[in-house]
């Protein structure tokens, strides 16, 4: 009764109403920012008195925004590659390994996801100051890799668990070496998991704020750090323009992820 939508009677409308309100609550702030980024009011008056592209012009005229975006992209791609590679190896061990303590190891791999990022950030900040890599590209990459890896491991272990090891065994029986079987049978079999892990890892690095604030130096900062420092000074519409571009990127990556999922089910 309660789990059959059409037999809910009046409750059906109450539930649908709550759902619709919540969807608006989640969606409106995002649409609001997009609208403001094209609005002509510096004071972010809504509805905007007129429409303009000047905030985007201001955004692209400032080389620091572009530089920060490039830095973010560079770090994101390196993190993506390393996270998928290390995540794949770790997942092979977790799913196919035959050693004791695999459950403990899995929990260990997920701890960076559970621990508040600010603790990791402060701890790495101290360590990197000592090592002299604070404010450098490797510093950023290591910091982001620590938080991206658990997501890659979750995604890839999920894919590996649904991939029947008997197929790999069959390849070995037919004369393939274990490495050949892994590379040419298992990897293509779990490619959707690998793609999802790559997208997740990139997005985590690209969007990451807290670690980046601690890792940043005046000469090297990511896009979120640039947004953060600007935001602390004033609520300029240039941030709305930058945010809109970030939303656009999110939508594109989400569509890519959905297409991958669709390809998997077909």
């Amino acid at each position: 009764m309660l789990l059959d939508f059409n037999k809910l009677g009046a409750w059906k409308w109450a539930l649908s109403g709550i759902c619709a309100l919540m969807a608006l609550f989640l969606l409106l702030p995002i649409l609001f920012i997009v609208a403001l980024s094209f609005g002509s009011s510096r004071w972010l008056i809504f509805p905007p008195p007129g429409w303009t592209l000047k905030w985007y012009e201001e955004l692209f005229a400032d080389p620091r925004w572009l530089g920060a975006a490039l830095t973010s992209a560079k770090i994101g791609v390196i993190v993506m590659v390393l996270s998928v590679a290390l995540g794949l190896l770790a997942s092979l061990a977790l799913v196919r390994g035959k050693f004791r303590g695999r459950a403990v190891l899995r929990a260990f791999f997920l701890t960076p996801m559970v621990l508040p990022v600010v603790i990791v950030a402060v701890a790495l900040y101290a360590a990197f100051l000592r090592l002299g890599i604070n404010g450098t590209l490797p510093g950023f990459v290591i910091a982001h890799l620590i938080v991206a890896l658990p997501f890659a491991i979750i995604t890839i272990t999920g894919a590996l668990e649904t991939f029947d090891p008997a197929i790999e065994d069959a390849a070995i029986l037919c004369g393939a070496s274990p490495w050949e079987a892994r590379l040419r049978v298992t990897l293509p079999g779990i490619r959707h998991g690998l793609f999802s892990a790559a997208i997740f890892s990139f997005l985590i690095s690209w969007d990451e704020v807290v670690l980046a604030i601690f890792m940043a130096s005046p000469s090297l900062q990511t896009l979120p750090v640039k947004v953060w420092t600007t935001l602390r000074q004033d609520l300029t519409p240039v941030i709305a323009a930058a945010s809109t571009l970030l939303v656009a990127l999110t939508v594109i990556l989400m569509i890519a992820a959905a297409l991958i999922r669709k390809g998997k089910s077909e």
Partner: protein
Amino acid sequence: MLSAIAARRRGSGLGFAMPAILLLLAFFVVPVAALLTRSVTEPEPGLQNYVTLLGNSTYARIFFNTFFVSAVVTLITVLIAFPVAWALAIMPRRWAGVIFAIILLSMWTNLLARTYAWMVLLQQTGLINRSLMALGLIDAPLQLTNNLVGVTIGMVYIMLPFMILPLMGVIKKIDPAILQAAALCGATKAQALWRVLVPLAAPGIASGALMVFVMSLGYYVTPSLLGGTANMMLAELIAQQVQSLLNWGMGGAAAFVLLVVTLGLYAVQLRFFEPGEGR
């Protein structure tokens, strides 16, 4: 034959996990341990950092803010997420798909972009204050940012997807026949809701609530942008001690308290709820 395969793939063991293990040891375990050590060694060996942290009224206020805001955020999130997750689990596919896409979009939109949206919406001259005044509900703008109200709204916004998605999974797994049985036995809808559906979903609610609470406790970005310096939360205290005051001992002590609470609640989650269920 099978043992021959097993022998050939003996390599797929612990060795594969080594790069990830070494990375985490070097850049996660050791740095965090070093930070915590500094809480009892700086400025001089002893527990004085913890004495100050737990005995001083300024810090007591910060702990109160942290736990209070996290509890309120968790409560509001559960109250909104339960009906939404319930509806999503049973709605016609097309509508559920639309709402699902909105949840994912919000979840994956840059955190700073979302927080910026709320800073603009909630400010004195923002859309919300203007609308309320235009409707004649208030005479003067409400103070909605630089206080815990703003933090709570901003955090609920961020936490909702983390509660809805796992809860939806739990409700989907409930057998509709159980509720049909309740109806056949004469339960009204309200009775079936309180005495059958809610208890069956309770593990999912508890597990999701715990996750939201833990995430809220350690949140940094939203509280510092929407809360202002006068309404600090624990994560901001840690950052401030280390970054502005260079007081590593105190920062380490605050980090240790946050870490113990977080891992303690995580252990509860693992112990009582099936791992993976809440994620």
